[in-house]
Each structure stands twice: as structure tokens, then as C-alpha cells.
């Protein structure tokens, strides 16, 4: 295996293939940087070019792009509080407050550094689990996947400790908004008002932009301020890396979590960063400052969202089953390159698989380095007055939102959700739980439906189901109880993470 890996490195290290990888990285970073555009857009840009390429070059191009989406998307998440792609929603929660405190460069430095580590971790996981992941994936049937969706929903309890009831209602609100459109298994379209746009439900990018970007822009304008409230920047990229290094176990933990969850098909990438955030908040000491600018709230999800790409490739490659929109398109791309994903990827096509691993690793380093170089410069965007910055962002997110389905509904819903999001923000309703509910709505319904129609009620007593249930209970209890008992004076956590 290791000899084959060395051979694959040689395959990838050809100048033209490296060139393709760099091109892929560039596209990935730009697409990630633009709020609302994610991996599927990147893939649709690149797919027309892969025809007739040799497989290794094509893989270098596509994987180079996919690997760095979650590196580039950190910029808007931290700097303007707008999710750069659906995988970086949780970064906003602590990253944006840091930018508001003028610590954007520090937060970005930490985020890019841990993105790189997470990405490398994901590549290692991909390499290490390719031959053993099969039983893991096969152990998870519909009941287990349903329980994992419930685990995701239980993050709501952790994310809304301030007012748990509002958090739960907000999540239920998200769940009901998520049921708009088709039901799993039957051709019934719900809450569509016979408007064809709603038959496919509200696109996640539109909902996320509406919920977070529009309210933030309105408030920035109304406060007549710039993002960094003191209008001055403190902390540098190197400080960020130094802070991140102090939390190395957190990086490893979150990367492992991201990669492991990425391997599971059916849960979907956009909830992994929330789970990573919730688990981070649960498992660290002194978490009162989470949500107010704790750097650990950036490190957790950012390690996980890059690591998950490596994990997500496992089911894509060995089962031919994509775990996300990006991997779905990658699958199409591989078929266009003449590679049929499936069990053969660890046998006849092992060299292609290993070149994917290498590309993933190299692209993560390259992407993080490029972002680190630019970070100090881009961080200055946070001192531009809102009245000069916001109109640009609004044009960008309008165009980006429209790319979701290329229907006017995208823009109309963006504004409607934007108003709802603004009211929620003003009224002190937590918005993150709504997003989690929305993301998990279809998954929850699908696997509950499948479990019930396959096993009746018997699945409730499956040992694996009970095990995940126990995990959920432990996570909730362990997370909520000690914080109540050992409340530290406010501000200590920030001090710990400040250099």
C-alpha cells in the first residue's frame, strides 16, 4: 500500500498535473470566497473541461477544487458573518464576533491553519479507512441514520442554552420550513401554494444567506458602523496560528469527528460543522464565551469541515454513493474520466484513489497557504464603513442566491427569509437552531419513514439504536449540567484564548 502511495505521488508530481491542481485550487478558493456559492458550483464550472483529460489530471483538477472550498469559505463567514458555503455556517457563531472585536486576522490565521490540519487529517483518514470502511458504512441502516439525525438535532439544546425553549421552537420552525416541497417516498408536494418554485423546497444557500447575511447587513447599516467595532485591528495571523497550536487536542478531536461523520452517507455535509461546534462547546472548559468570540468556536468547526471532505470521499469512491452535492458531481466527473467508482477503487483503480489522497493533501496545504498570505490584507475589509461595504456584498449575495435554482423565487425568498431573520435577531431568537432543523428536516423524515415502513416499531430496540440514544443523552446531560455547576466569571475564556 505504501509503495503504491509513493508511486501515486510520482504520478501526481508531474508539472502539468500540478498545474491542473493549482487551477482547481484557484477555482475552489474563489467559489468558496463568494458567499452562497459552494462545491456544486465549482464542480459545474470544471466538469466541462474534464472531457478527454487523463484521469490523474482530471482528478487533480476536481479534487484540487473540492479540497479548498472549505478553506476559502472561511473569509466571508468570519469577516462579514455570511456563510461562504453551506459547510461553514457554524464558523459564523464565534468567528464573526471576533471580527467585530477587531480580531479578524487572528481568527482567520487560526481558521486557515486548522483547516489545513483538518484537511491533511481527512486525507490520512481516506487513505487509512479505504479498505476497512465498508463494514462501518454497512453497519448503519435507516434506524441508525435516523438516530444520527436526532443526534444532530440535539445540538440545538447545546446551541441555545440561553433560552432553551426558544431554541427548540426555532428548530421546530426550521423542521417545518424543511418540509416544504416533496415528501420522501410519495409524490406529494407540501406547502407549495401551487407555486412551482417551492416544489423542490427552499434551497439551503438561500435560507442561510437570508437568515444570516441580510439581517447582519441591515444591522451594520443601521448602526452606521464598520464590522470591527473599534475600527482598529488587533492580533495577527501568526497569533492565530499560535492560539490554534495551544488547542492541538481540540483540532485532532474535531478533525476526527468531521472525517468520521463525513464517511456516513445520508447525513449530509452541512450539519457536520454544527455538530463539531456543539461538541467543541460541550467538551471544553469555561464555555460561557462561546457565541461571543471564543477562538475555540472557530477551531472546532473549521478543523471538521475540511476533514470531512476526506471522509466523504470514502463512500463516494468505494460504494459509488455520494454523500453531498459536491461528491455527487465528483462522481459524475470520475465517470466522465472513464473511472467507475465502486469496489474496484481499492483494487484495479488503486492508483487513481491514491492520487486523490495526495491531491487532497497537497491542495489543502496550498489552499491554506494562499489564504494565510491574503488574510491580513482581506481582514481590512472589516474596517470599511458599512455604507460602503454592504452594497457590494448585497449585489454578490443576490447574484449568488439566484444561482441556487435560477428562478426569481430565490431572490424573493432571500428577502422574505432576510426579514424573518432580522426579526429573529432583534427579538433574540436563536437562528442557528432553525438552520439545523432545516438541514435535518428531510433526512429525519426520510430515515424515520424508512425505519417505520421496514421494521414497524421493532427498530426502537435495536442495540445500535439504543447505543446512539445513550450517546445523545450523555452529550446533552454532560453538556448542560457542569456548566451550570462551575460557572466561571465571564471573560475568563476570552482571556485564555487571547495571546
Amino acid at each position, binding site marked *: 500500500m505504501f509503495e503504491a502511495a509513493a508511486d501515486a505521488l510520482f504520478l501526481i508530481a508531474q508539472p502539468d498535473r500540478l498545474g491542473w491542481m493549482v487551477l482547481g485550487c484557484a477555482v475552489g478558493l474563489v*467559489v468558496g470566497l463568494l458567499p452562497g456559492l459552494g462545491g456544486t*458550483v465549482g464542480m*459545474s*464550472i470544471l466538469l466541462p473541461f474534464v472531457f478527454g483529460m487523463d484521469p490523474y489530471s482530471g482528478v487533480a483538477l476536481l479534487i484540487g477544487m473540492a479540497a479548498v472550498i472549505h478553506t476559502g469559505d472561511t473569509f466571508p463567514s468570519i469577516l462579514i458573518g455570511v456563510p461562504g458555503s453551506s459547510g461553514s455556517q457554524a464558523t459564523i*457563531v464565534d468567528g464573526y*464576533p471576533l471580527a*467585530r*472585536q477587531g480580531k479578524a486576522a487572528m481568527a482567520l490565521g487560526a481558521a486557515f491553519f486548522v483547516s489545513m490540519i483538518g484537511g491533511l487529517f481527512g486525507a490520512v483518514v481516506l487513505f487509512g479507512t479505504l479498505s476497512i470502511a465498508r463494514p462501518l458504512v454497512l453497519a448503519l441502516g435507516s434506524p441508525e441514520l435516523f438516530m444520527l439525525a436526532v443526534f444532530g438535532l440535539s445540538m440545538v439544546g447545546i446551541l441555545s*442554552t*440561553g*433560552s432553551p*425553549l*426558544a431554541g*427548540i*421552537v426555532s428548530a*421546530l*420552525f426550521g423542521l*417545518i420550513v424543511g*418540509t416544504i416541497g416533496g*415528501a420522501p417516498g*410519495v409524490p*406529494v408536494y*407540501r*406547502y407549495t401554494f401551487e407555486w412551482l418554485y417551492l416544489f423542490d423546497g427552499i434551497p439551503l444557500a438561500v435560507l442561510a444567506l437570508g437568515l444570516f447575511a*441580510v439581517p447582519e*447587513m*441591515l*444591522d451594520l447599516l*443601521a448602526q452606521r458602523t464598520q464590522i470591527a*467595532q473599534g475600527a482598529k485591528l488587533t492580533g495577527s495571523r501568526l497569533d492565530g496560528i499560535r492560539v490554534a497550536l495551544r488547542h492541538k487536542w481540540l483540532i485532532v478531536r474535531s478533525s476526527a469527528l468531521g472525517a468520521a461523520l463525513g464517511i456516513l452517507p445520508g447525513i449530509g455535509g452541512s450539519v457536520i460543522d454544527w455538530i463539531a461546534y456543539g461538541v467543541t462547546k460541550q467538551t471544553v472548559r469555561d464555555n460561557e464565551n462561546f*457565541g*461571543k*468570540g471564543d477562538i475555540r468556536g472557530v477551531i472546532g468547526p473549521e478543523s471538521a469541515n475540511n476533514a470531512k471532505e476526506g471522509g466523504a470521499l470514502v463512500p463516494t469512491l468505494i460504494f459509488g454513493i455520494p454523500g453531498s452535492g459536491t461528491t455527487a458531481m465528483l462522481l459524475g466527473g470520475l465517470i466522465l474520466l472513464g473511472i467507475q467508482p465502486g469496489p474496484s477503487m481499492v483494487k484495479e483503480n488503486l492508483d487513481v484513489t491514491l492520487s486523490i489522497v495526495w491531491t487532497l493533501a497537497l491542495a489543502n496545504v496550498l489552499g491554506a497557504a494562499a489564504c494565510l498570505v491574503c488574510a491580513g490584507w482581506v481582514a481590512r475589509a472589516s474596517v470599511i*464603513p458599512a*455604507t*460602503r461595504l454592504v*452594497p*457590494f456584498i*448585497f*449585489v454578490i449575495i*443576490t*447574484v449568488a442566491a*439566484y*444561482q441556487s435554482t*435560477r428562478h*426569481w423565487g430565490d*431572490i*424573493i425568498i432571500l428577502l422574505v427569509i*432576510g426579514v424573518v431573520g*432580522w*426579526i429573529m*435577531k*432583534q*427579538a*433574540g*431568537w*436563536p437562528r442557528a437552531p432553525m438552520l439545523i432543523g432545516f438541514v435535518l*428536516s428531510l433526512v*429525519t423524515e426520510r430515515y424515520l*419513514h424508512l425505519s417505520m415502513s421496514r421494521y414497524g416499531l421493532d427498530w426502537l430496540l435495536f442495540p445500535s439504536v439504543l447505543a446512539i440514544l445513550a450517546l445523545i443523552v450523555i452529550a446533552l446531560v454532560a453538556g448542560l449540567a457542569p456548566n451550570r455547576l462551575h460557572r466561571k466569571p465571564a471573560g475568563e475564556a476570552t482571556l485564555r484564548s487571547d495571546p
Partner: protein
Amino acid sequence: MNPREWLRVGFTIAVLCLFAYAGFEALSFSRLARYMPLYVSVAGAALSLPLLLAELRRLRAPGGDAANRAPSSIEEYSVGDPLTDAEERKRFWTTAYYLGWMVGYVALIGIVSLPVASAVFLGAFLRLEGRMSYPFVGLSVAALVAALFAVTYLMHLRWPTSLIGW
């Protein structure tokens, strides 16, 4: 009572109504498509009712603004003193004003197409709100429109359809 209180109570009522509507509507779906929206809306309605009661109780309880502020651990990161009622009201209307800008921009896209609307919106906003000097406004608008065309071409993006058909 400041606008935030109104918003909070009003929004809770709206959410309650929405759950009620969703639950009622769910009854008309076929059995397999019904249970998820039905149970979620019943739970949502059942939980938003106590939330509403709690808020109404808090409204009637004596105490300053700061005491009344809704707790929200993950989104309250604004530093500085709490605003007075008058300031809150002013901010509320300022926000509505800026929302008007956004709606206007979107309407303009529908009428005169994306590049024209973006140029007009950006130019007007930077000049009137951003107090930028004309040369910088011109430069910004030119840069934005150029970027729009470049990005559209390179990424095969689509522009919203408009009345003039671009």
C-alpha cells in the same frame, strides 16, 4: 414599550399561527406525507404557547430594558450600553429604510436587468449613503459591473430575468 418587545411578542404570535396553519394544512396530505409536518407543528404550537405566555408575563413585570432583553447566548455579542427606547425606535426605522433600498434594488433588477440595476443601486447607495466622492463612485461602479460580467462569463452564472429581457 420598545420595538424589540413588540417584535418579540409579535413574532412569537406569528410563529404560533404558522404552526397552527401548518398543522391544519398537514391534515389534507396523504398519510405517508402527513406525520412529519403534523407532529412537528403540534409540538411547535404546544411549545410556542408557553413561550408566548412567558414573554407576556415578562412584559408586565416591572424592570428596566436591560432586564427585559431576551436571553440569547449565541448571538448577543454587541458591546456597548443597551439602547434607550427612543434609540431602539430610531434604529428600527433606519433598518426599515435600508430594507427599502434592498427591495428597491431587487425590483430594479426585475425591470431593467441585473447589470443596470446593480450599477444604479451601487452608485446611488455609495453616493447618498456612503458619501463617496464621484470619481470613487464611478470607479466602484465600473469595477463591479466589470466583475459581474467577468464572473458571469467565467463561471457560467445566470442573471435574473428582467422585463427588458436581458
